[in-house]
Structure formats: C-alpha cells, structure tokens
C-alpha cells in the first residue's frame, strides 16, 4: 500500500469514528443535525487524521485482542490499588515510606509507553512522574510497590507482550 492511499484510509477511519461518536451523543436524526455532524467530522478528520491512525502497523488485530485481555487484568489491579490506598489511609499508624525510583524499559513506541505510564499510575502505590527515552521516574508510596516494578517487572512484561516489543 503506497503512502497516498494510506492517508486516505486514515482520514476515512477518523471520519467514521467521529461521525459515529456525534450520532451517539446527539441522538437527533433530522437533516440539520446529521448534516452538521458530517461537516464537522469531515473538517476535523481532514485536519487531524494523523492523530488517531498514526501508521498502519502489522498485526493490529492480534494486538487489540491482547490489549482487551490486558485491560481485564488492569481493572483487577485498579481494585487492588484502591483497597491498598484505603488500607494505608485508614490505618491508625499510616504505613507509608515514600521513595522515588528509576528504571529502564525496552519499550519505544509512544502508545506502549503511555499504556505503561497510565497503568503504573493506576496500580497499587505508584505514580509515574516522568518518562525520558524509555527511562521511567516513579514515585512509590512504600517499599513493596516499588519492588513490584523493580524486581518482579510483571507489568513491564505484560505491556511488552501486548505491543510485542521486547
């Protein structure tokens, strides 16, 4: 597939996604509202199609499937994180010992880095401060959640598996 048809594909996908979103949110199907939706979606799609569909990567379907499975695991981690924070907040002695850790990842694509950063923020006791060239700066609320990132590396491996970047 050459570059020009790839661009057209990007615009078409962006337009369809935006227009579907418009229809679902408006819920009014007379000529004026649908027409306004088509015009607005077309303008936005022409300007910013390269934001949503960056490149036609290979194995997108398999990656999306793995991503959905990963989301299930992530949801469970979020529930655990909330119980962890609730325990630390409500415990009379407040068992916290904050520290800042730094580690490298082999991930390079933006989407993988964002996924890992958001996952770190959502899971027990850790928040991402900064990412620079695949190097993560993370604030951990105690020693144990920091070790989960530094020693076990469960999350890094899972994200690397989803985006197939080792």
């Amino acid at each position, binding site marked *: 597939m050459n570059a020009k048809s790839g661009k057209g594909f990007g615009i078409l996908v962006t337009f369809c996604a935006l227009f579907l979103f418009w229809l679902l*949110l408006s*819920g009014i199907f007379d000529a004026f509202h649908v027409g306004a939706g088509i015009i607005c979606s077309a303008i936005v799609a022409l300007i910013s199609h390269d934001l949503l569909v960056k490149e036609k990567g290979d194995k997108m379907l398999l990656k999306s499937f793995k991503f959905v499975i990963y989301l299930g695991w992530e949801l469970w981690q979020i529930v655990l994180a909330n119980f962890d*924070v*609730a325990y630390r907040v409500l415990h009379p002695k407040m068992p*916290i010992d904050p*520290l800042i850790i730094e580690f490298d990842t082999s991930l390079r694509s933006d989407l993988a880095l964002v996924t890992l950063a958001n996952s770190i923020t*959502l899971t027990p*006791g850790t*928040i991402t401060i900064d990412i620079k060239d695949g190097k993560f*700066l993370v604030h951990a609320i105690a020693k144990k959640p920091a070790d989960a990132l530094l020693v076990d590396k469960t999350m890094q491996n899972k994200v690397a598996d989803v985006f197939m970047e080792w």
Partner: protein
Amino acid sequence: MVIIDVIVTLFLAAGIFFMFTGVIGLLRFPDFYTRLHATGKCDTLGEVLIIAGLLLYHIYYYIYEPLYIYHIEVLLSEKLVPIKLLFLIIFIFLANPTATHAIMKAAYKTGVKPWKLGEERR
C-alpha cells in the same frame, strides 16, 4: 425490582466509600505526592463505581420494560443515556491517571521535595 435496587445501592455505596477514603487521605497524608496517591486512585474507582451503578439501573430498565425503546414520545437522545455513561467511564479511565501524572510532573519540575519517613508533615 427490589434486587436491582439493592445491587445499585451497593455500587453507589462502594463508590462513596472510595471517594471518602480519598478525602481522608487528602487530609491525613504528609505531603503533596502522597496526597496525590490518595486522590488520584480513589477518585478513579469511586467515580467509575457510581457511574456503573447508574448504568446497571438503566440496562435493567431496558430489560424490564423492553417496549420503552419503541415509545415515540420519548426522545431518542434519552434512550442513548447508557452509551453516554459508558463513554464517561472510558474517558475517566483515560483522563484521571494522565491528569494525576501531569500534576505530579509539574510539582517535580518546580522542585517540590518529596516527604521522607520521619520528617514532619507539611
């Protein structure tokens, strides 16, 4: 009818509990970064649980009264409410950790010192 009320109430109560711990954490924790731990995480699950409760209520309503979909006098935009709630959940999951991270980064860049164990609270 009663069962769905109980389930939805449990969802709302769990959501309020997590928001409540978020507030207590905000008041008890010693410094900026640890306070963000409490608010950034508890907010996400608290809000999502509350919205999920409302979503369940709507879905039950559609099953309990399927002809509701064909009522002409009800605006279609009102029938699309569950989808909008679902969008809300997705966007909260995307936006909340990102905003927490952005505030954290801004504080770190301006040089707010992290609290260490044994120091006085700020």
